[in-house]
């Protein structure tokens, strides 16, 4: 079983859209996939129309027992794809982790129990650098980072890369890719060229800035369901294929 984290320090970069569409294509490719929505402000669960069960503060138990995790799993409408919906109590993860003095390996251990049922766990992460984020960096085989090719995003990514270096998380895990690319903008084109030179592990396929991605909120479904032949859909499919190669190699 592989663990793939979709992570960004910045919000609004297409992180959740990427988690949803990559999870969708992974499931289509035959990976038994679990999308774990850890971002209570995000909307992975919303896009799959999945709601959390009424349960008090299960976030605490999440780190304690695998059985509790299983109870939260919900089938999506797509074959091979299950979802653990975001829960409000996730907001307090950081606080909780501090309180119980959780070890950074805790998350990985908790997820290990899922390996009988799933080939791939995708974590849609909250946009913070925190205790939880550190657990995620430790747990994940790959940390995918959506980056809009702008100067500000470049600086944010530099920070993350430095953080990985300082904390020795294994910089090889860190895989950036471009999202919301508008090729008509000179800034986008130039930043992309510079960043690809500086970071060799950038994925080749980029996600274009597209109304089809934004419409996910209306359709509440992966793009393939309502815009099969559109460029954004093909971009996600191609991006998944690149990721699949990395998963097989790892």
């Amino acid at each position, binding site marked *: 079983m592989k663990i793939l984290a979709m992570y960004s320090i910045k919000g609004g970069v297409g992180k959740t859209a990427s988690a949803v569409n990559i999870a969708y294509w992974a499931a289509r490719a035959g990976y038994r996939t679990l999308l774990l929505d850890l971002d209570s402000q995000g909307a992975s669960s919303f896009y799959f129309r*999945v709601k959390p069960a009424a349960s008090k503060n299960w976030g605490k138990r999440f780190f304690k027992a695998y059985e509790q995790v299983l109870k939260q*799993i*919900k*089938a*999506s*409408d797509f074959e*091979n794809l*299950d979802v653990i919906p975001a829960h409000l109590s996730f907001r307090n993860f950081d606080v909780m982790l501090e309180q119980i003095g959780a070890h950074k390996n805790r998350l990985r251990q908790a997820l290990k129990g899922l390996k009988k049922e799933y080939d791939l766990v995708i974590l849609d992460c909250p946009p913070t650098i925190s205790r939880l984020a550190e657990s995620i960096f430790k747990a994940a085989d790959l940390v995918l980072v959506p980056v809009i090719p702008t100067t500000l995003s470049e600086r944010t990514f530099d920070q993350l890369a430095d953080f990985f270096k300082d904390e020795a998380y294994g910089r090889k895990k860190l895989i950036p890719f471009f999202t919301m690319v508008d090729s008509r903008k000179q800034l986008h084109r130039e930043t992309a060229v510079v960043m690809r030179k500086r970071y060799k592990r950038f994925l080749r396929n980029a996600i274009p800035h597209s109304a089809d991605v934004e419409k996910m909120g209306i359709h509440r479904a992966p793009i393939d369901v309502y815009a099969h032949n559109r460029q954004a859909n093909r971009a996600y499919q191609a991006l998944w294929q690149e990721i699949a190669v990395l998963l097989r190699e790892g």
Partner: protein
Amino acid sequence: MQYPSNQSNKLMKIRSDWQLKEGVSVEDLQQGLTDDLSLCRQESTEREIWVLDDADWQLWQADRLLLREDGSRLRLYDANDNCLATATAPEKSRFWWELPAGELAEKIRESVPLRAFVAKFQCRISQQLLAVLNTDEKTVVRLRLFGLTRTDGSELQLLSLLPLRGYRREYDQVIALLLPQLLVKTAPLTLRQLLVQAGLEITVLPGKPSFGLDGREPSEEAVTRMAAKLIQLARHQEQGIIEDIDSEFVHQYRVNIRKARSLIALFKKTLSQPRYLALKGELKALGQITNRLRDLDVFLLDQDHYRRLLPDGFQAGLDHLYRRLRRRRAATFKSVREQLSTEAYLERISNVLLTLNRPAEFCSAQAQTGIRELVAKKISIQYAAIVRDGSAIDEQTPDSAVHELRIECKKLRYLLELFAELFEKSLLKSLVKQLKELQDNLGRFNDFSVQREFLDQLVGSRGSSDEERASINGLAAVLYNQQLAERGQVVANVNRFIAIPVQENFQQLFHSEGQEPSEP
């Protein structure tokens, strides 16, 4: 018939399957649900299905299901409806070797190496996939609605309810709501189950007949009863022979006749002289009808094997030879078919059965002996004869003695197998296994002789070309060498079978117990 199934095995145990009450429609199902649940029609299919299998339902029994759909599409499924292989083949294809080379052909060969698969059952199945949606339009339960047209023309509706992970409450709710439309629970609606619901019945004759023997039954009665049953079993093959479905019908027919003949010969002392002679003559005549046809079938079935034995230069000759043999087989088959349909044949069969069914005459002491006691004695004697003849065989012994030994072994095999139900199973099984190893060796040795004789006849017959004769002679030479190799193993195999431990086993199983009546 795959369906999204992102659910663990535990969930599949919760699924439930039902027969619907008559005339229930999708609208009725929708109306049964509450306002916060709606029914969404998804994919629907309708298929005309033919179930293909061989005479003994060997595919079905191996948990395989071969279907012909939409005319020429063949699909092989496992017991869980997973499609294992597909191929497109014309309707007349009946053997694995007539299918396009590939996975389907290979998989069918595994279960049905020799037999023809034929259309056994036909049925129409319609399937409507339905999703129960909540107010978010999220699927919470999946439904599969099946419509079947039974063999008698009546219609039947069946419904599978499939839970989705995390939506157990909704699943229970949906069942409760639909209950008024549901008639009765059924087994999980796999393809196999649907076919059974549509009226498919599997009738299989047991491979090895059971005679329901009582060890104390007087031998004359037991033997004649068993022979009659074997003749009946042979008769079950007649229709398949006449329709020329596959070569196994002739083979099974002959096996049963031969067993009956052997039985009568082995126990001739339990019968009056006139009864024995009558049966002997009639059974011999019955066996002869198919002799030539079987020889030709065997040679034709082994075609690929023979082709591999000869280099390329001889293949053209083999082409001629096989063309000629196929013509000859067609003619021979025609004559067999005619014979099986004649009054004379039917009269002969009924004569045999009448003779066997006559009340016991008890002309000898043996006739009244309990069958178990007599069989045990016979087996001991038969084995002793094999030990005696076998120890006389060395590398120089003439072939005729080896053939004699083969025939004695075959008699022992029949005794052990026909009367197996009278003796302790596990020990008997191991003896049969050891005997089989020897028999296989002797059998191959004999087969090479038979094949060479068969080739000799062909060389001598009119109408063979030089090319063909060269191939036949080449084949004969290869077969001769193989026969020598087989002969080289005979002594070791015989010695293994007559070794002291095996002798002790026979002693244990058949000697001391010979006197005791069996407990059924």
